[in-house]
């Protein structure tokens, strides 16, 4: 029998705010344990939560970016369970009236080849709700320590419909979602810091069957690569169970990305009864049109929208766009360079093959770079105008990247100014080149045009790279035509 996998994801994204979800204490990472706490975070007797409006702004922004309906009224519920990482032994969350409903994440499926755009697909979302993160347990051999620094950090949970059918789709979903959240300034989504965490609900069913199979929840998928590996592994496991004639049991499994093995955490019978009820300490939140309008002013372009625009407005090839669009700053850098230089295709090439290469070699992010779009644009114009030969331009780029100096200044510093158009020097270099290579001359005269490159190399060597390639070509052809 042929089976298909059905996958739904629950993605937790920490919202980057100055203070915590329900108290004024700072939200942060990597600090001395239990220093980012106060009476509210530690759940001291008498402490009460107060909603962080910046976190609401961020989740509304996320919802609008993902095409969700923003609920006019949402409320807060308590999810009750005992665990030492939860100071109140309940988590403030949103149960049946979340702030965002519906929406979708656009993904690109793998194309026929690397340079061919794959089919796009919309993965529908069920909801997004806002809640608070829990603390962290560090287990020792004989005891466990709790750090409440993370407790109370604003956290949104993005729940997809069970609408993906492969690990690749899940991977594409997370990549697109992460890019959107980073580009919206909502979260840094650093999975190593736990700023993005993913659980997957996975089931299989015979192809053609519309009912869902028994789902298994896979937890602790703590890198995007592990999400793909874990889902792949779980689909294979379920297929193997089915093929043996076994029954898939509803359970929660833990996937270990290092070993590639999953094991059962708890069965359905062991599932918690969270005893959700409305939090009496908090009032429902009303989101009106004015609020939405204010957030709409600040919505970034979604990556695939940007890709469509880059292809349409700049006639960029698909492969270039798929490098640029996932980084908002890089896209802005490109557009600035294209605007100033008037040469979008060359601008994209210099950014992808020059800038990204230099950044990679230097291990720097764009924000740390000294090079500016006007620098790259200046280079692009010089090269396009034949004022700077390609090899020299690369050296200039490297120096501009290193120093942040203007290309013109670097050219002067390195003595790379092109020689004048028809100097006697150039005439001499060309004569020497032709004279020193009779074989190439014979080839050229017998009709092999590419033989001229042999002379060009010689001229450039004599000119130590400073000759204008177009001038070299012109003078060589003039002299050759007379021979």
């Amino acid at each position, binding site marked *: 029998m042929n089976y298909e996998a059905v996958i739904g994801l629950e993605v937790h994204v920490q919202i980057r705010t100055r203070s915590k979800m329900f108290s004024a204490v700072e939200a942060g990472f990597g600090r001395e344990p239990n220093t980012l706490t106060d009476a509210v975070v530690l759940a001291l*007797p*008498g402490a009460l939560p*107060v909603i962080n409006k910046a976190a609401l702004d961020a989740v509304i922004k996320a919802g609008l970016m993902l095409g969700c309906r923003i609920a006019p009224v949402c409320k807060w519920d308590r999810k*009750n369970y005992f665990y*030492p990482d939860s100071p109140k*032994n309940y988590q403030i969350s949103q149960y049946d009236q979340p702030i965002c409903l519906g929406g979708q994440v656009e993904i690109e499926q793998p194309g026929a080849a690397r340079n061919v755009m794959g089919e796009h697909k919309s993965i529908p979302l069920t909801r997004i709700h806002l809640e608070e993160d829990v603390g962290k347990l560090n287990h020792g051999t004989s005891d466990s320590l709790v750090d409440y620094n993370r407790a109370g950090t604003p956290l949104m949970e993005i729940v997809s419909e069970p609408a993906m059918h492969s690990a690749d789709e899940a991977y594409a979903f997370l990549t697109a979602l992460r890019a959107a959240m980073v580009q919206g300034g909502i979260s840094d989504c650093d999975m190593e810091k736990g700023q993005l965490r993913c659980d997957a609900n996975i089931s299989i069913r015979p192809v053609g069957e519309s009912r869902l199979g028994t789902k298994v929840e896979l937890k602790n998928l703590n890198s995007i690569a592990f999400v793909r590996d874990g889902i792949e592994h779980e689909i294979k496991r379920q297929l193997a169970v089915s093929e043996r004639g076994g029954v898939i049991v509803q359970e929660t499994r833990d996937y270990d990305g290092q070993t590639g093995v999953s094991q059962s955490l708890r069965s359905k019978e062991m599932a918690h009864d969270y*005893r959700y*009820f409305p939090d009496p*300490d908090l009032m429902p939140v009303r989101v009106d049109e004015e609020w939405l309008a204010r957030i709409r002013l600040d919505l970034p372009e979604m990556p695939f929208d940007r890709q469509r625009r880059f292809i349409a407005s700049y006639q960029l090839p698909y492969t270039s766009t798929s490098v640029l669009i996932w980084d908002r700053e890089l896209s802005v850098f490109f557009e600035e360079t294209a605007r100033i230089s008037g040469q979008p295709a060359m601008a994209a090439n210099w950014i992808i093959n020059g800038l990204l290469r230099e950044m990679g070699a230097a291990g720097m992010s764009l924000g740390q770079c000294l090079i500016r779009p006007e620098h790259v644009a200046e280079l692009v114009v010089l090269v396009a105008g034949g004022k700077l030969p390609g090899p020299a331009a690369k050296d200039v780029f490297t120096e501009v990247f290193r120093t942040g100096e203007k290309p013109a200044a670097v050219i002067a510093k390195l003595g790379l100014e092109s020689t004048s158009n028809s100097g006697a020097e150039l005439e001499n270099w060309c004569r020497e080149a032709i004279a020193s290579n009779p074989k190439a001359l014979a080839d050229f005269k017998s009709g092999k045009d590419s033989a001229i490159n042999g002379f060009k190399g010689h001229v450039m060597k004599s000119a130590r790279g400073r000759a204008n390639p177009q001038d070299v070509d012109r003078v060589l052809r003039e002299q050759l035509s007379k021979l």
Partner: protein
Amino acid sequence: MASEIHDQTVAELAGRLARRELSSEELVRALLARKDAVDDRVKAFNSLDADSALAEARASDARRSAGQSRGPLDGIPIGLKDVIAVAGQPLTASSRMLANFISPYDATVTVKLRAAGAIPWGRLNLDEFAMGSSTENSAMQTTRNPWDLSRVPGGSSGGSAAALAAGEAVATLGSDTGGSIRQPAAFCGLVGLKPTYGLVSRYGLVAFASSLDQIGPFARTVEDAAIVLGAIAGHDARDSTSFRADVPDYREELKQRRGPWRLGIPKEYFGEGLDPEVAAAVAKAVAYYQGLGCTIKEVSLPHTEYGVGAYYIIATAECSSNLARFDGIRYGHRSKQATDVVDLYFRSRAEGFGPEVKRRIILGTYVLSSGYYDAFYLRAQKVRTLIRQDFLNAFHEVDAILTPTAPTPAFRVGEKAANPLAMYLCDVYTIGVNLAGLPGNSVPCGFTSGGLPVGLQLIGQPFQEAELLAIAQAYERGHDWTARRPAL
């Protein structure tokens, strides 16, 4: 009769302090002496930090000498129920769970009292976590009613009531979730006010049932209650359920509001279980208002009979979640026998909580459980809406509603301890006010033949405390109940 310092009202003492006839330090020393003389019998105080009270009294005296008095409460000690946080002082909730807990921060009411110059005065006993109607559920001690030491002071704010009635304080704060200020006020012959839900910040009040809890004053007179309420009321950004309302000068308002008022008598509050002497005292009070020119109208609150049931579902559901934080992990009682984390929870909570608290946690956990939520919690919330609607309907016709505060006067220690249901019915007249979020005021309206105080409850419209206090004072002026003191 009220000539001793400890017997005087806040208004009198404020006047004497202002005229420099008395220093705050003298006042504090007089109350310390009184406490030393009677508290081994009354048992109202869980603890008292005399040194810090004296230091603050001297600071107040210095302010007054420098012409920088902060107003009528400057230098006045205000007793605090042991669920209201004071930085550096114990916050036990009369529970073994918090027996050694020191609060690192001030509740908002404490901050406000300090801003008015008042002095936090002791940690007053209560039923553990404010759950009870007699203060017998305290893990610390059983507080006695100063009018009859064989009887309970009521609860849960029994320590706040008894301390004031015994002259160990001149005003105190309690908290009221289902009657925990008004019922002990009635049992101890005091004025006790539960403000409108949202008028007084709950920040720093150990939560029992968040949607019902309110802090309010116990006072000897309506005027004193108005003074204290004025100091603690007002919006607080730390409490999301706190209301953005203007706080009037309640004491000044008392002088302005003269009636006559339209007063409602709900027939459902005068049925089975009402002690005849209480009924008679309330009837006389009603007649008195009639004599003042007030219109008396019978009103109906038809959903009253469902109040106790709805209350014990909502209050226990909230408490089961609110008290989950007491787990022995970060603070509070931690069992020494525990073998693992689950065992730590079980043992710490088994050892730390008393039987009534456990009963309510179990009940609340049950009503929120999957499959029972709709039948219990959701239905109770609907009843709550209907009860509020009953009151609001009645307020179309009347300015305030008069009822007995409690069905009986103070009962004997141990009398109802074995029968939780009988104990729950002590709150039958006070619970509706909490469910509806309304202000309720208990004022003394006489004594039984056995010399026990009886309370009259006045229920007002939301945020109409000024009117409610004026109506209460109109009655108080014509009687001398509030001038009487128990013989101790």
